[in-house]
């Protein structure tokens, strides 16, 4: 720990960094999510590229001071492209002993460690399982740049005269931490001050308290004698345009709104609350002006079947859940497959099986999406790569579902859902058209008459005279739609439904390859691991390795050029947060000797570990 004496108020050295990884950690009641979000907004204002990782317990009010009650928010910001929230921490803010115990192992040696000393008293130490106060151990200060700050005490001092009770005053201490870290990394306070002004319009005292405490934290950094240096992170070179912070779940919701507006067809959204998918429902429920109708259904099955009923009525039916809920929707999805109705199913994947770890991320539902229904039940499967990409994928899901009269599953995950990134706001006019034509002509009408290009059947809105017809879950004769138990017809229909999904391949743009078109190693990923994989691959490339990566957005059907691409590399590596699902698909589809990199910890993949694996694979070349 540095105790360099600098004159109070003197300008301190500011060292320029290319990137930094910070984690705020405390009790779930300490406001760490808010602190992290505000720091993210400040960094966005500073023009940095950003990736975030909120991490919180499933319990709403976990007992204070416990290890399992720790909540944290991590972000990486930089003057260069930032692909991930970062593996190891440059700075850890620990608001109590439990937070220190849980998160210290992720702090780099020599990293900045800021602790709230007031919380390190006997009761909290006991709950965290510390026999002695770890702050008294000289080894801690030797290994890290430890700064012991009585945040609680300083917070109270700053607002002593305000008429708030002790609890209310205590609650503002996260803004002390935010002010302090904002000073250390030269963040602008304006966005947070603005936020406080808007948020606490009802209580002037609370607004005043938060403002003062934020500034007190900032001033403390400026004047405290032991902060030996502070940092700047210059704006990143990013495509010019208007940006906003975007989380994956909001992007999904807004992508659906864009599709509703563009298609001019109402959207009916059926959902049952489930972590981490509920915020999509909540977001959509706020936007009734877009004629999106949200049904909070009685269960997961009602959620999907209400959506199917809406599609039968000529609206676009959407349902959303996480893995356990998707399992319950299986039979309903099968009905949409055979009734050949548009349906979009959003799966915000989480760690399982069963309840698993609801607030932790995973991507182990790929096989469920591809095969998790009875019989031959093919659906289109898409996966967004980043929080902002969720917008485009949700939109594309609606477009494909309506064009091909087919269910489309979108595989997002908990990391994308809650994580945010600076997002270049698109011009909605540049989105591809969603051109929906309902059949109104009775002449020559049959319920399963197929479009020769897409194989889709006509979509008829009930209420159209002369087109009264019946459909259902029983196998039907092609073209007429009449019930049929004919063996050859069933075989034909099974193949036709599969072929219809295969034809969606004509919608897939050429696969973009990050790196050389041929080489020693191709890393293939899908979904929320895009950032971790890209960061690792670019580091390997910078080290002169012959490595490229491909990130799949279309998982069924797969891109038509993928087979060719895979054969251009000596080895293929498939990193996934599961035990090896895409890797099986690739091996089965293309007979390539792809190998997996698999970690199933409820966390994003660490790019350092992927890099090690890349190096190992290439090392064995000789």
């Amino acid at each position, binding site marked *: 720990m540095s105790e360099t004496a600098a004159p109070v108020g003197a300008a301190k050295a500011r060292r320029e960094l290319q990137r930094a990884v910070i984690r705020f950690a405390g009790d779930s009641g300490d406001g760490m999510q808010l602190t992290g979000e505000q720091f993210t907004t400040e960094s966005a204002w500073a023009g940095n590229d950003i990736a975030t990782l909120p991490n919180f317990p499933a319990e709403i009010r976990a007992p204070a001071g416990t290890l399992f009650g720790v909540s944290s928010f991590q972000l990486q910001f930089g003057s260069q492209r930032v692909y991930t929230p970062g593996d190891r921490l440059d700075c850890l803010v620990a608001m109590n002993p439990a937070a220190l115990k849980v998160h210290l192992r992720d702090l780099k040696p020599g990293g900045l460690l800021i602790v709230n000393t007031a919380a390190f008293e006997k009761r909290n130490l006991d709950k965290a399982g510390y026999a002695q106060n770890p702050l008294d151990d000289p080894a801690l200060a030797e290994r890290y740049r430890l700064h012991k700050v009585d945040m609680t005490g300083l917070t109270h001092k700053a607002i002593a005269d305000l008429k708030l009770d002790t609890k209310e005053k205590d609650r503002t201490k996260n803004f002390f931490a935010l002010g302090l870290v904002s000073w250390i990394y030269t963040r602008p306070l304006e966005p947070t001050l603005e936020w406080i002004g808007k948020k606490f319009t009802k209580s002037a005292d609370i607004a005043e308290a938060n403002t003062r405490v934020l500034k007190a934290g900032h001033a403390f950094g400026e004047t405290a004698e032991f902060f030996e240096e502070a940092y700047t992170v210059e704006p990143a070179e990013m495509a010019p345009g208007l940006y906003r912070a975007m989380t994956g779940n909001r992007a999904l919701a807004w992508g659906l709104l864009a599709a509703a507006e563009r298609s001019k067809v109402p959207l009916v959204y059926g959902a049952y609350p489930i972590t981490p998918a509920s915020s999509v429902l909540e977001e959509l429920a706020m936007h009734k002006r877009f004629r999106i109708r949200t049904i909070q259904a009685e269960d997961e099955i009602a959620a999907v079947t209400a*959506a199917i009923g809406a599609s039968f009525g000529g609206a676009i039916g959407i349902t959303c859940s996480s893995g356990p809920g998707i399992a319950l929707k299986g039979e309903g999805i099968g009905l949409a497959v055979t009734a050949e109705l548009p349906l979009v199913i959003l799966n915000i994947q989480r760690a399982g099986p069963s309840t698993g770890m609801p607030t932790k991320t995973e991507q182990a539902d790929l096989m469920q999406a591809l095969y998790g229904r009875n019989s031959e039940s093919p659906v289109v499967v898409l996966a967004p790569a980043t929080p902002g990409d969720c917008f485009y994928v949700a939109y594309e899901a609606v477009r494909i579902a309506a064009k091909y009269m087919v269910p489309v599953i979108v595989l997002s995950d908990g990391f994308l859902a809650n994580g945010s990134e600076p997002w270049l706001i698109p011009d909605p006019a540049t989105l591809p058209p969603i051109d929906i034509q309902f059949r109104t002509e009775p002449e020559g009408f049959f319920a399963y008459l197929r479009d020769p290009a897409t194989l889709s059947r006509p979509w008829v*809105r009930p209420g159209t005279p002369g087109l009264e017809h019946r459909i259902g879950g029983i196998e039907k004769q092609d073209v007429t739609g009449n019930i049929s138990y004919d063996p050859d017809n069933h075989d034909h229909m099974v193949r036709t439904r599969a072929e219809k999904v295969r034809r969606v391949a004509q919608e897939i743009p050429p696969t973009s390859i990050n790196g050389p078109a041929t080489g020693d190693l191709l890393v293939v990923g899908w979904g929320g691991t895009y950032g971790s994989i890209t960061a690792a691959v670019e580091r390997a490339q910078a080290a002169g390795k012959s490595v490229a990566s491909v990130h799949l957005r279309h998982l069924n059907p797969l891109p038509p050029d993928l087979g060719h691409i895979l054969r251009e590399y000596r080895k293929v590596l498939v990193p996934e947060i599961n035990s090896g699902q895409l890797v099986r698909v690739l091996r089965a589809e293309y007979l390539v000797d792809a190998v997996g990199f698999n970690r199933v910890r409820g966390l994003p993949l660490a790019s350092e570990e992927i890099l090690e694996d890349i190096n190992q694979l290439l090392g064995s070349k000789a």
Partner: protein
Amino acid sequence: MSTQGAGAAAAPTPKYTKKDFESDQDVRWCPGCGDYAILSAVQKSMPDLGIPRENIVFISGIGCSSRFPYYMNTYGFHTIHGRAPAIATGLRVARPDLKVFVVTGDGDGLSIGGNHMLHVLRRNVNLTILLFNNRIYGLTKGQYSPTSELGKVTKSTPMGSADRPVNPLAYALGCGATFVARTVDRNIQHMEEMLKRAAAHRGTGFIEILQNCNVYNDLAWNVIYDKTSKLAYELRLEHGKPLVYGPPDARKAVIMDGVTPKVADVKDVPESALWIHDEKNVNAAKILADLFAPNFPVPIGVLEAIEAPIYEEVMLEQEQRAISDRGAGSIAKLLVSGDTWKIG
């Protein structure tokens, strides 16, 4: 947006006959099944609804009853087991201009789909539910159903069922249904009358149709099929009329003794003590729902018809209010709302 779009159409509704509602599909129920009579009554009552045929949709789940939509020359959707009320709810939310019927049975509607039945009724979605109750699983060939009597011997319960039956009327009322009626497959005229009443109801119209499965549970409702027994037990509910029933020479009345219903000879009951049927009285309906032979009569008719907010109407009213207060949504505006920053 009209909620029963039939009336909103510019063109006058054509004059239909029963034949206009018969589809070209062969009816595949067992010969002698009570479903034939129900189908006929439904087709016969359709022209009187005054709704263009293209605005009518029949939704069903799985089971013998659920084949129903295939035989109606309207829009129809034969879906999956138990889920018809949820599918119909989604359809109504998307298309409040359509007249929606749900056809279900005791297994489909009260066992696998019991949860959806609860929620469609409490939401009071504007649609009509026809629940065919034959107290048996027919399509799966004769296992007991949730309305089978305790001790019912079937293929799956060779020593008798161990679970007590659910009463569809009491269940519907308990779920907060706003229209509850009972009718019988052997009384075409009464069925038509009930169908029309239920279809005209604003909100969920729930009808239990006592239906005969002549293959697996023949004469389960013989108490109101058999001429003598029917005369003895059938209690026709009529709004504003006293609860009296039975043969002319032995008329009986249902009256209340404190909070308990009991049967008395009409001649022993002063006129002022007769129970006058009131469809608006939910508490009375709950008592009526539990009456059955042999200790009580079998009530037939409308037990309850009340008004309550309709789910999709409330939802649409909110949508209209959001639009009139703040204008229709614009994605271009939404994308740039809130905190944004410019680069370059």
